[in-house]
């Protein structure tokens, strides 16, 4: 053998990169499916996670490929590697479960195992066999994700996955052909097919759904569970609505809060009155005062006069059933403890009432203004939208967004809606006089209460503080009663306290923010802490004495403190759609009676109010972020943390840098300590473990063993180079030879008779020490690399 260069590092073929891309797409899709589009985790964090995941996977893959090319070369090695990753993942889950009490569902755990397998195999994608296994698991993941989440961008991921998959298949096929072709062949990869086939596939995938947002081509071929006049027991979900509640057309036996349901006659109070041409028998509405007539094609006649109701946003199905023939012929009601459901971004403050005057004990409900904004109906995309007319034009609003309020049982005519409502839509209600202002900023219907199972769409907009530079807010204006402040001594104490909070803070939004923050952080939320019955000023008592109380005291105190500083503020009450209640499966957030809540509204401009919440644990809905902001958000958060904790961040960075710089020394010290502390009953094991230690040490010092060389031979070769770099070890030549022979014996002899093996190992640890190895590396870094084949040639000759 003439050359002893390290084993040639296998480069990553194009199909390997494609495999990594496939794994990335599949893992992202699976991650979203596993977390069920949890709105508590912002999309920005998903993007950051994806970036971090891609970076870590790529780095590990390249590191493994360059430094440990033997990993994954054989089936056994691949299994060991992937198995190790999976076991580590499961162990981590168990640790998290035990330490943080965050258990993972079993099916989710299984998907996580598959995901870990995909990641492990993607790292080994420079081996062709690993690619096949990786892509098989990745395909399972993407199929699982697409079946679990009904989101448009998941379909986009499927399309991307398919395209990359086609490229991968073509590349793999071409590589297999290349192996069989003559080496002299000048055949090149047919690039036109590389482009044509995926584009054709993309065209098919894009054209079919774009035609009419429904995949008509698949109708009749795919099993469905509803929504398309078909019901298949084989379907987990169907084309169209899937397992969500869907509107029936025939044999209707239940009613649920869904918008496209047909209108049926009922004795429940309702907005709608069914005009039935077929039987010419008008329905008597006992409680409804007014009604809207509907065309016959939108109405059906119920089969069962006592129709069941589904008050939930989704259906549950238990696989554990009673045995025997089913007896119940009638569908029962699906009860729900929720007052209503919210579909859309949460958290959300849904106002029902606002309060302006305060006498120290009681807040007085704010009366309707004499001339509330005019309400009119606009037809948008064929649907009637109620729009309050506003005259003021302020430019500090984020883009409007819609929420669906699905009423279950709410005994009020007010529509719980966010601040700054810009539109209200109830299907088929196209007359403005069916609505009215119930409270300031709160629209209601012209009925005693909201009908059960009614779906109301509410469009609103949020005051975005980031836009205050564009349009300056006017915090001091607005109604006189919302600027009311007491002239008693307790109120004066509150003013002094509030002024101390804002010392040095510029007036305006910064001060408002500071007051809200001080109320939130300086007091304890305690729902059981009631105000004393003999209190004459509950807010002052809360701020100055008890510092503990329920949410209305937090909100009241914030309002009073803001007013003391001259800002216009009012108390608002209603419901808080808590993101912690969000149900990812049905994509709804239930609102319970316990979600009744108080918060603050600050005057931001003529007729405009801004929602603020000083209660700890309650968050105001942030404006929707742009794509750039979404991506930058986690990085901003990290930057904010660093800015807020400079010394801690500096210490952590210094620690990380030090660790990164000295990582090899630290790892080697730990490695050697582990060898010394281990009790060896067998001398052979001691020698083998010392060989492992020396090999890792050589690799860390930049002298990795070529995969085809035996450890003993490589150590002998390194020792020759060490003699040049560190002549002090020249007298130890006998020890070197002895240990090399001992290593051969330990590894390859059928019987081991190594006397004084531990002593030889300790001597080897000193000979092939970190210092000596680094001397070799340092010497060769500034000199011509030695011809490492000398030693091997010498043996050969």
């Amino acid at each position: 053998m003439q050359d002893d260069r390290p084993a040639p590092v296998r480069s990553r073929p194009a199909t390997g990169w494609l495999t990594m891309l496939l794994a990335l797409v599949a893992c992202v899709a699976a991650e979203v499916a596993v977390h069920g589009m949890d709105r508590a985790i912002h999309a920005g964090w998903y993007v950051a996670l994806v970036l971090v995941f891609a970076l870590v996977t790529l780095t590990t893959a390249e590191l493994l490929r360059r430094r440990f090319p033997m990993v994954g070369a054989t089936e056994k090695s691949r299994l060991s590697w992937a198995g190790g990753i999976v076991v580590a993942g499961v162990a981590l889950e168990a640790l998290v479960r035990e330490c943080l009490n965050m258990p993972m569902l079993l099916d989710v755990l299984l998907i996580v195992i598959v995901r870990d397998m995909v990641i492990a195999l993607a790292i080994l994608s420079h081996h062709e066999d690993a690619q096949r296994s990786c892509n098989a698991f990745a395909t399972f993941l993407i199929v699982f994700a697409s079946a679990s989440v009904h989101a448009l961008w998941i379909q986009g991921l499927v399309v991307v996955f398919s395209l990359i998959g086609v490229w991968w298949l073509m590349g793999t096929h071409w590589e297999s052909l290349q192996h069989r072709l003559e080496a002299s062949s000048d055949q090149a990869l047919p690039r036109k097919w590389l482009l044509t086939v995926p584009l054709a596939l993309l065209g098919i995938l894009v054209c079919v759904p774009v035609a009419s947002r429904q995949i008509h081509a698949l109708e009749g071929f795919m099993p469905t569970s509803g929504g398309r006049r078909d019901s298949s027991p084989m379907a987990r979900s169907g084309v169209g609505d899937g397992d969500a509640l869907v509107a029936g057309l025939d044999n209707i036996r239940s009613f649920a809060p869904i918008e496209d349901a047909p209108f049926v006659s009922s004795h429940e109070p309702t907005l709608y009155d069914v005009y039935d041409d077929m039987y010419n028998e008008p329905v008597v509405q006992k409680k409804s005062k007014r009604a809207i007539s509907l065309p016959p094609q939108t109405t059906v006649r119920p089969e069962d006069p006592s129709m069941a109701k589904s008050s939930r946003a989704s259906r549950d199905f238990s696989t554990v059933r009673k045995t025997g023939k089913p007896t119940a012929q009638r569908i029962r009601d699906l009860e729900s403890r929720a007052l209503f459901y919210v579909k859309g971004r949460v958290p959300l403050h849904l106002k029902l009432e606002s309060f302006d005057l305060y006498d120290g004990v009681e807040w007085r409900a704010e009366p309707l203004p004499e001339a509330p904004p005019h309400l009119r109906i606009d037809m948008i995309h064929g649907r009637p939208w109620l729009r309050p007319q506003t005259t003021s034009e302020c430019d500090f609003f984020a883009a409007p967004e819609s929420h669906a309020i699905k009423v279950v049982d709410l005994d009020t005519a007010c529509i719980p809606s966010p601040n700054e409502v810009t539109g209200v839509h109830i299907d088929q209600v196209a007359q403005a006089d069916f609505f009215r202002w119930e409270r300031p900023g709160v629209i209601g219907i012209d009925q005693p209460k909201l009908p059960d199972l009614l779906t109301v769409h509410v469009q609103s907009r949020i005051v975005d503080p980031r836009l205050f530079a564009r349009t300056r807010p006017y915090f001091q204006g607005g109604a006189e009663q919302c600027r009311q402040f007491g002239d008693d001594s307790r109120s004066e104490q509150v003013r002094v306290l509030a002024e101390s909070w804002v010392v040095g803070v510029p007036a305006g939004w910064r001060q408002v923010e500071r007051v809200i923050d001080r109320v939130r952080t300086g007091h304890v939320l305690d729902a059981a802490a009631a105000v004393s019955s003999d209190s004459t000023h509950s807010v002052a008592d809360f701020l100055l004495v008890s510092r503990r109380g329920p949410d209305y005291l937090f909100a009241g105190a914030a309002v009073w403190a803001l007013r003391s500083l001259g800002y216009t503020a009012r108390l608002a009450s209603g419901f808080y759609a808590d993101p912690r209640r969000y149900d990812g499966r049905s994509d709804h957030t239930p609102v319970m009676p316990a979600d009744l809540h108080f918060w603050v509204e600050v005057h931001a401009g003529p007729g405009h109010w801004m929602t603020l919440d000083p209660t700890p644990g309650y968050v105001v809905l942030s404006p929707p972020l742009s794509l750039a902001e979404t991506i930058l958000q986690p990085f901003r958060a990290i930057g904010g943390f660093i800015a807020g904790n400079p010394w801690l961040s500096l210490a952590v960075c210094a620690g990380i840098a030090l660790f990164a710089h000295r990582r090899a020394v630290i790892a080697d010290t730990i490695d050697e300590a582990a060898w010394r502390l281990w009790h060896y009953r067998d001398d052979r094991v001691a020698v083998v473990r010392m060989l492992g230690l020396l090999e890792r040490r050589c690799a860390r010092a930049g002298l990795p063993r070529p995969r085809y060389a035996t450890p003993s031979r490589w150590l002998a070769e390194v020792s020759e180079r060490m003699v040049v770099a560190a002549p002090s070890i020249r007298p130890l030549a006998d020890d070197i030879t002895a240990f090399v022979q001992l290593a051969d014996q330990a590894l390859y002899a059928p019987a081991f008779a190594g006397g004084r093996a531990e002593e030889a190992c300790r001597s080897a640890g000193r000979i092939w020490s970190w210092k000596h190895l680094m001397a070799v590396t340092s010497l060769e870094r500034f000199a011509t690399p030695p011809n490492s084949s000398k030693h091997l040639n010498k043996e050969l000759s």
Partner: protein
Amino acid sequence: MTVPACHDMTAALDRVEAVRNRLNDVLKGKRDVVQHVLVCLLARGHLLLEDRPGLGKTTLAKALADAVGGRFARIQCTPDLLPSDITGFNIFNQKDREFEFRRGPVFSDILLADEINRATPRTQSALLEAMAERQVTVDAECFGLAEAFFVIATQNPHEQHGTYPLPEAQLDRFAMKLEIGYPHRDDERAMLAAAVADAAGTRHADGGAILEAGQLAAIQATVAAIPVTGPVQDYLVTLAASTRNHRDIPLGVSPRGLLTWQRAAQAWAYLAGRQFVTPDDVQQVAVPVLSVRLGAERGDMESLIRQLLQGVEAPTWS
């Protein structure tokens, strides 16, 4: 056959070392060639020397025969050489009125077949049975060859006109193929000086057999019994499989070739004074063992074999 006990190994190694010194003295500056010749001898294989004329092939063979104490025979292969010229033939004895067998040069301990590729394929194949089974069959009668029968065949790779390249089946009978090459300048000067000294009688050249009768066979048996552990055998099998799956190698290693490879590695371990085989031993003998049987182009052979070895991970502790 009794295998020498372990305590005899040192004495035997001393004898082998003496043989090595004798050969090194004869073939100056070719220690690696001598090492492989000894490996081939101890592994009970046959050797194919491929090089130009006048590089010491015959000298090496004669010195080896002299050192191991065996009979030496030489065949100069030509196109008109007949198989019976190698194996021997039956001749009618007028006096006894019956046929008697005249033994050919194959009935020796060390046989030098010079320029073997100049013999016709029919004659070349006559050596097949002798090399593989250490016996010859003449007129349906089998004759056993010497226990330490060792063939050194030579061929000139540069003169292909009028030659008959050895078929793969014939090549597979050889354990190794070696090239001697020109000696170094200093070695050539030493060679010239030694020739003058020999002629002048001022230099005493060693002569005579070093090994006793049957000692070579005993050492060969010892070599064959050196243990090869499972991981090393797995390594050998993996290497053999890689030769069969390589796109540039038309003919992979046969099971017979694999056995030869293992035996050569055992011999290398023996010469290193070890009682076990390591992957290094396998690698050290890979080039001469594989180059005779892979069927690839001559110039690419060594780099190809090196590439093969680098593609397979050496067994360690896993």
